[in-house]
């Protein structure tokens, strides 16, 4: 499948984000092997250098380790660490933007909670 890449970031970062999202939502599990650089390059139709750069980022962040001759593996505790990092990112980057927008639109807490509860009960 061809992936539609966005224009705002380099592809290796977008690939890394995709893998992170897959770790968080459980599509990739701790202790599991990541597909080889070649497989990623072929499947996504990207240069192998781009694919290995995304993997290198994951290694640098301590989420993935390279096992000689075996490939890349997701480390134990990766999901927990990621979740913590993502929560921090949400609270420091996204949440201020959202609260700014909430006050811009003049929404109050009651409305927000009511809508949120309605949406959760719908989806569950």
């Amino acid at each position, binding site marked *: 499948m*061809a992936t539609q*890449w966005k*224009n*705002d*970031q*380099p*592809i290796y970062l977008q690939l890394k984000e995709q893998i992170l999202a897959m770790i968080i939502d459980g599509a990739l599990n701790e202790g599991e092997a990541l597909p080889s650089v*070649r497989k990623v*390059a*072929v499947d*996504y*139709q*990207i*240069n*192998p*250098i*781009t694919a290995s750069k995304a993997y290198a980022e994951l290694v640098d962040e301590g989420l993935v380790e390279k096992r000689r001759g075996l490939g890349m593996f997701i480390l134990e505790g990766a999901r927990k660490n990621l979740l913590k990092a993502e929560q921090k990112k949400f609270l420091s980057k996204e949440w201020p933007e959202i609260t700014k927008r909430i006050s811009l639109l003049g929404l109050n807490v009651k409305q927000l909670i009511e809508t949120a509860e309605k949406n959760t009960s719908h989806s569950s």
Partner: protein
Amino acid sequence: MTTIITAENLSKSFGSFQALKNVNLTIQKGQIVGIIGANGAGKTTLLNSILGLSAYDGRLNVLGFDPNSQRDELMKQICFISDVATLPKWIRVSEAIDFVEGVHPSFDREKVLRLLAGTTVPLDKKIRQLSKGMIVQVHLALIMAIDAKILVLDEPTLGLDIIYRKKFYHQLLEDFFDEDRTILITTHQVDEIENILSQVIFIREGEIALEADMEEIGEQWLVLNPATDNIDAARAMAPASEQTLLGRTSFIFNGQPRAELEKLGDVSRVSLSDLFVTLMDGE
């Protein structure tokens, strides 16, 4: 990093027309290099010089050989496709395999049979009886079965539909390319190969307009869509080009820090086709 191609003051004239003007460039092993330029810019002349198919002035070193005088040696380690699907109509697939086996010392018969086994191509049929898609598969299988250090593709997918173009590059990455090999590609469908390239060379009127790693390009060249109030401020930062689409102005910048540009609006990476247009228009 091992340098496999070096050109110094490479020039080529056809009568009074200078197809290449003092071209200097180096290409490292393990790269997929896109050579991009308008029609008549000198792409094919450059490739033909590298392949030893056309005489040139200046110095050229390919895998340690001089293509002008050591073409025989060079040909053992290099292979090329210009315009796929141009195999002789009268030859049978099995005969084409016999032929390449006979002329090329590093041809792997087992590999071509293995590659073709994964297709519906009948080995006993003549090229004329095959569909265009099948001819492409035969051609590519023949080339990929050659253990070459360099593969030169000059408009390899001309006349193929999008499905076969995709398959072509898919196969190239899956069955041929590795870090010991180097691929040089020219094509007009720049957008389709942009993500598989690691290096790009823009040629304009016989000269190198830009030669860079894709990574460098991603860092150096940025597109800015400024907020309306910031258009003048953006213009003051010396953009390489300016474009207005549906009343929205965007700029392409070379070498301005991303953080500076982000103060003025949305920043994105530049596509090779936009960069190409910018470079061809510039100066």
